[in-house]
């Protein structure tokens, strides 16, 4: 087992009086794919956003690729440095609306990573090639369909070659056909050295594609393990109820 690329210890986060994350621990190894499941409001998206400081956690420690930060007193400089080891794919794509597809991908490279322009363009085109969007590199986001925008969103994240790639419900805004396309695309990244953490409601995808599945409820991790264990034999009653419908549907396929 290689060393963890991302380690979270005892992460807490409150919004006002509501404590939404109540002590989360997590280790993710390079190349690993982790699926984060749970009902809406369980804190999984907030947790993901704490990992790149889009939300500031109240306490705990976070280590990414060798850099450790105490979340209580994270400095601007540390936050920026940690962020630059990560990349994120958003539910609603979040492409820069004032920039072309190519500029969307090169932006983080040239501005945040200091990659020379020519080199950034080469890397960006390679990423766009990988997601099948190189032909649209001069288009603006509003000229693209949702599925195409999400491909660009993924290319933008890939081009940064992050140590940890965060997906926040990457398929929730897409129609069923496009969902499959995007999931296939994410599946194709499985053998890259980047660690992938995916917040999703796509149970089948989590079952087939994740190395490890985490079930969250009310700000805590209730269950964690290999997909076949979590889906096949959930230890916790809450997990069982959440997965019930899915496992009932899929039972013949997976569990006999």
């Amino acid at each position: 087992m290689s060393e963890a690329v991302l380690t979270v210890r005892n992460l807490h986060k409150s919004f006002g009086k509501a404590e939404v994350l109540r002590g989360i621990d997590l280790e993710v190894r390079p190349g690993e794919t982790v699926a984060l499941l749970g009902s809406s409001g369980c804190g999984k998206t907030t947790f993901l956003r704490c990992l790149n400081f889009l939300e500031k956690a109240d306490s705990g420690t976070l280590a990414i690729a060798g850099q450790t930060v105490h979340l209580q007193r994270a400095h601007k400089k540390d936050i920026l440095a940690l962020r630059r080891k990560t990349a994120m794919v958003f539910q609603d794509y979040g492409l820069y609306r004032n920039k072309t597809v190519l500029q969307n991908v090169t932006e983080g490279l040239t501005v945040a990573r200091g990659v020379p322009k020519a080199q950034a363009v080469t890397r960006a085109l390679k990423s766009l090639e990988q997601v099948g969007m190189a032909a649209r590199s001069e288009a603006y986001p509003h000229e693209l369909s949702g599925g195409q925008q999400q491909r660009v969103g993924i290319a933008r994240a890939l081009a940064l070659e992050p140590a940890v790639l965060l997906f926040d419900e990457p398929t929730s805004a897409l129609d069923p056909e496009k969902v499959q396309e995007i999931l296939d695309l994410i599946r194709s990244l499985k053998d890259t050295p980047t660690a992938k953490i995916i917040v999703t409601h796509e149970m089948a995808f989590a079952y087939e594609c994740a190395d490890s599945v985490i079930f969250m409820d009310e700000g805590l991790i209730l269950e964690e393990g290999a997909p076949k264990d979590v889906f096949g034999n959930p230890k916790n009653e809450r997990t069982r109820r959440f997965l019930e419908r899915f496992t009932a549907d899929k039972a013949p396929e997976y569990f006999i």
Partner: protein
Amino acid sequence: MFDASYILTFLPKLLESLPVTLGLVGVATAAGLLLGLLFALARLEKLPVLAEASTVLISFLRGTPVLVQMFVVYYGLPLLLQGIGIDILRWDKIIFIYITYALNASAYFSEGIRAAVLAVPARQWDAAAACGLTKGQSYRRVILPQALPIAIPSLGMTFTGLLQDSSLAFSLGILDVMGRAKTLGALTSRALEAYAAAAVIFIILTLLSNAGFHTAGRSRKRKEALT
């Protein structure tokens, strides 16, 4: 009797003063935009002290007539600065007018800019931060370029208002288009015609400025169609 032919004779004379009016509006717009941006940023970023100071200043500037502000700046500012040993009593009148109009415009520009920045979806901030951009880089490269097209109609309205308000500068004896119209009218006893000629100039300026902002707004939007 009203004799329209005087309008034509007055027009060239008034146009000689057009540079004064345009200079005033130009300086106020340039300085006002810069100041307005700073005020807006102070409030958006909730900078301690500066944010509160901006809020108070803006509400004063938007809540009092520009004429009052002009007198405050013209008579009050020298006294205030004298108190700390700076003598500006000898400054040219026009400087005080520039300061007044720049401040006045900055308040309206600031609110226009602030509203436009707030209208950019929060996700754009997320996306910029997630790619590792700093706050400043996010503003410069992602947020402000998207806020600009949103702000253009409001900036245009402020500009048009400024154009009309500039005519009050003659109360301090500035010979802009309006000041010139007043003196011409008094000199020839054709005040009505003189003001009518001034009105023609202001209407044309306003139409030109509206057309300019309209085109600017449209060409920007085409590229960045806001969803």
